[in-house]
């Protein structure tokens, strides 16, 4: 038996953390097409590998986005597999949740979509092996019930597989509730393989690597770095072995720089020099992380104001196609608080603890309450630290400029 396990295609979903300014149109096009290209490769591989079937474990697209392109593409790709009689089994997740009539979806005959209640679908392969697959689709954005309890115990078939879109308790922190389950519960069903979806970082939850998140198929922001693709699962006697195949056309990467120059120009040149030496084979979207202690105040100010990134991206326009990288953001690391060194430093230190409180953040963000994305981005340790650093920098720069008291 040979099948493909893929999930979180997020077709036609935009990338996060990019800026409109300076991005060349051709790059925009590549980005727009990236989720499609990666997914298309998976379907092509399914045909080339002559797999017995394909499992898609949810979040194929965002239903709220109502993208025609995504629907059209998916219909086409399913049809490709339909023409060579490769079945496709789909569960919908928290982004592509669906509670309506499955017939209305207009998928071809080879495609089976699991309903909102756990159901089991049987297949008989050309080899004669019988396969049962159990799964369910999200009816809306959250599923609080422990759906795992509805999954049947292993049936009298050659292979019993489970499909589930959700987060494992204790392992993944979640803001919402997504069909929670525990590894023990999965293992208790005695299935041969669990095709999981929802977590974008590919990982196995068990040692035998039969409880797997395939991960998403194309990274869409800096926290989704590393190779992305699908899992090919093959049977070797009575065991299932999975292997990863990369299909993403764009990778995300963090790159650390220890600055050696004193001007912004030197810094930019250094960044480009180091990146081009990497000789990337595939397009990389890069966050440059610079150790703050290797920078002077002017450089830091330019980074904080966004000016450096603007200039850098303008220059990036001319070389990205040759060297396959595009710098999306610059971040300072190892920022130290230098206010203590000042004459009035003790006052600032004393004030610091009272200022940078969660309440204060929330209060200041009040004006932006309508825009949820703001709070979502800022109310986390990373962003808050950045703000703290920025405030520190503002004061420090001023102190340095003014010199000691006269």
């Amino acid at each position, binding site marked *: 038996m040979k099948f493909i396990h893929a999930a979180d295609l997020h077709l*036609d*979903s*935009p*990338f*996060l953390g*990019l*800026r*409109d*300014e300076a*991005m060349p149109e051709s790059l*925009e*096009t590549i*980005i*727009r097409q990236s989720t499609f290209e990666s997914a298309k490769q998976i379907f092509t591989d399914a045909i080339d590998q002559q797999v017995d079937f394909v499992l898609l474990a949810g979040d194929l697209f965002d239903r709220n986005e*109502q*993208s*025609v*392109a995504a*629907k*059209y*593409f998916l219909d086409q790709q399913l049809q490709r597999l339909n023409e060579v009689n490769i079945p496709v089994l789909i569960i919908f997740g928290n982004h592509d949740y669906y509670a309506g009539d499955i017939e209305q979806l*207009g998928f071809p005959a080879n495609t089976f979509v699991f309903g909102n209640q756990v159901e089991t679908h049987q297949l008989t392969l050309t080899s004669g092996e019988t396969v049962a697959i159990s799964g369910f689709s999200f009816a809306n954005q959250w599923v609080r019930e422990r759906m795992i309890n509805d999954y049947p115990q292993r049936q009298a078939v050659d292979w019993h597989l489970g499909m589930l879109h959700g987060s494992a308790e204790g392992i993944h922190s979640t803001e919402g509730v997504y069909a929670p389950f525990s590894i023990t519960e999965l293992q208790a069903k005695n299935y041969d393989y669990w095709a999981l979806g929802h977590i974008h970082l590919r990982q196995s939850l068990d040692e035998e690597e039969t409880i797997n998140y395939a991960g998403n198929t194309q990274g869409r922001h800096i926290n989704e770095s590393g190779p992305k693709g699908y899992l090919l699962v093959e049977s070797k006697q009575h065991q299932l072995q999975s292997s990863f195949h990369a299909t993403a056309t764009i990778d995300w990467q963090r790159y650390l720089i220890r600055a050696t120059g004193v001007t912004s120009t030197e810094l930019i040149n250094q960044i480009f020099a180091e990146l081009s030496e990497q000789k990337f084979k595939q397009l990389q979207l890069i966050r440059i992380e610079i150790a703050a202690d290797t920078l002077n105040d002017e450089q830091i100010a330019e980074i*904080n*104001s*966004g000016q450096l990134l603007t200039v850098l991206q303008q220059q990036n326009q001319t070389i990205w196609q040759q060297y396959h990288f595009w710098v999306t953001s610059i971040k300072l690391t190892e920022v130290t608080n230098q206010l203590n060194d000042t004459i*009035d430093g003790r*006052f*600032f230190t*004393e*004030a*610091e603890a*009272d*200022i*940078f409180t969660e309440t*204060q*953040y929330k209060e*200041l*963000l009040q*004006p*932006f309450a309508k*825009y949820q*994305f*703001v709070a979502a*981005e*800022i109310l986390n340790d990373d*962003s808050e630290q*950045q*703000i*703290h*650093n*920025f*405030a*520190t*920098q*503002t*004061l420090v720069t*001023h102190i340095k400029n*003014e010199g000691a*008291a*006269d």
Partner: protein
Amino acid sequence: MIIKTIDIYGYGKWVDQQIEFSAPIQVIYGPNEAGKSTIIDFITSILFGFQTKRQAIHGQYQPKHSHAYGGELVFEQDGITYKVIRTAGSHGGNVKFTNLTDEIELTKADFDQIIAPMNRELYSELFYFGGVDQTAFYKMGLDDLRWRIQKIGINNAESWFALQKQIDKQAAELYAPRGRKRVINQQLKQHDDLVEKIQAAHQQFPEYQELTKQLAVLKQQRLQANQQLADQQKTLQQKQQQSRALPLIKEIDQLQQKTPAQLIDINDHTFELARQLNTQLDSLTQQTAQNQAQVDQIHATIKLDDQQQFLIDHQQQIEELGNQLNRQFELCSQVELLEQQIKRNQQQIDKLTQPLLDNGASRLPDLLTDTEISQVNQFLQLTSARSPKKVKANSAGVIIGWVMAMVMLILGLFTNRVLIIIGVSIVGGIVGYQWYQKKQPISNDSVETGADNELPKYLIAIGKRTGLDNFPIDQWVSVQGQIRQINDLNNNLDIDANQQSNLKKQLHDYLVQWHFADHWLFNPNLDNRQQLENVQQLVNTAQQLQKKQQQKKQQLQIIDQLQQTNQQELNQKQIALQKILNDNQVQSITELKQLAEEQKQQQQNQSRLNMLQQQLEQLHLTTDLNVNSLTEINAATNQLEQEVNQHQSEINQLSNQISEAQTRLDMLAKDGSYYDLRQRLNNLQTEINANVTRWLGLQFAQKWLELAMNIATKGRVPKTLERTSKYFNIMTNQHYVKVNFEDQITVVAADGTSFEIKELSRGTLEQLYLALVLALAVGFSDEMAFPIIIDDGFVNFDVYRTQASVKLVHEISKTNQIIFVTADKRQAEMFSHDAMLNLTSKEEKVND
């Protein structure tokens, strides 16, 4: 600081005025326009600098009648007395500063250092009470208080305040809660716009779904229509088949009727054979006729005329004689030749003889004998040796010539007669040459020999005998040759003549034999040759005739054979033909032909019939047809054709709709603009977040700075608050117990009631403010104790409160010099124990 004296050079109405100040309290009493305010302003100006025209709201106090401006001020601080002189100049005026105690000249900088951080503004806020700006006071809150305190309490307070302003500015650039042009505000607006656009673009999805459904329906419709069309076309086809079939059927019927029961079945070969035979017979017959004609013709020409008959009759004779003809011709030729020869000889002879006879000789001389020749030669040798060459040449030439001639003649006799002629010619030539020679040299030689005309007798006798006496002696020998020649020629001539006559006889004998053919032949006037030629002609004619006769015979024979063969063949073929005719029961070849024609026609009909039947089969008719239903069928066909067209156009329309829908569908699917909107939205969110981060950073910096500054002055603020409460308590005779500073100031009465300061009476308000100023002043007195100026401060106080306030003033004067300025005598009297400057006395005016 305690002010000791002032010396006004020129300020307002004061010119060159000295005033002494006492501590701890100095009262200045004077009516309106006495110059009290001028003095106060003078003090502040000397201490903190002259104001510019713009800054001086109350005027610069330029003296009207004096050019001097400014003055001196002597004060005491920390046990040292100082004098400061400030006069007109830039940057607040020219300053001279002296340490009077130690008599040290100091600088402006030193003065500024002592004064710092106090300035006019701060002083008026902290150390001057001139009544209260109610509105401002109402607005005053803790922050303002803090500000007043912080200004003094922090190092580089100004620069921090500047930073605060800068941060505010930067933050404001980024965002303002109700702004529209700030960066974040604009971006938020853009965000809203994009969200709207995206909302609108959502329409695409239902449109896509709708189109997909539509497309399916259209395709289904088209499918149905296609099916219907197919059915109709099938029916139409049938009808068309039928209409095609009818004429076929008709013709088939006709043909079938024409077909006889029994078909002619004759082998084509037979016809062919008969035809061939017939043709051959015709040709044979023709040939026979031709042959016969030829025979007749030949026979016609066989007829002979008389001559021909004659020749035939004497054929043999003629033949015999004819065979001799060639010989006779030869003879004739020989005769003619001989004739010529004879003539030539004769000519030659004549020629040769003639010159010899020219000498007068009557005859040809005779030959000399050899002895005679030698005798002559001997004689000649003796007489001439002069031209041996010529003679030799001549004789050599002559000898060669003679040799050649002899050779030719001998050869000629054995071979060709021609050579004889050549030999004769050579002879002739030699003779001629010699004759010529003789002629010439005779003239030359005769000169030479003329001398010797005398001849021996024996020679003369020879001459006479031979007849050479007419010749010169030197020619005698030479002439021999010629004579000999002539003699020879004569001989030849005779021979030839004989021969000729012999031959002539032969000819004659021969010709005589031909007399039998006289009729046809002889013309006696003809010579031999001509006669021979006639004979020849006759013979030829006879030969020809014979040949012809022979030929004709042969021809006749051949033809005869041919005729026989022909006849055989003819018979054969006739028999064969007849057989065929009999076999097929016809009388003639014409009838047979007719039969063949008929058969052909039948075959044609049959094949046409087959073809029609095949065609009919191919039409696959499903029903039997009545031949007469053509009109019906045509009508049905027309209608069906119309319907088919209609359906066709329907289908075309559907196809168009389908392709339109498909195109639109593809367009929707390929349209990247919706994605672009969403990507842009995300990008915008990223940028908004970046800006908000910056803005928050600034906000935090601001708050941080504020708090730090607060902490830096933490000591003072609560103390000031406390002190304010205390002083207010005193001034109000314990009517109020507490003053609270928050966003606004509130006071608490003794009974615990809280009042906003708006609710206080004017007098109480002023007391509160005074309490504050005094509290502030006292609060800073550890660092800087400036004189406190109370300018008409108690006007709105009632008696009791005034008393209480005065008491407080006295209390405070322990730490600060108080300068109490009033126009109210009563108030002035309350300070009866203190130093009083009465300005009325200065002006010689007393207003009571």
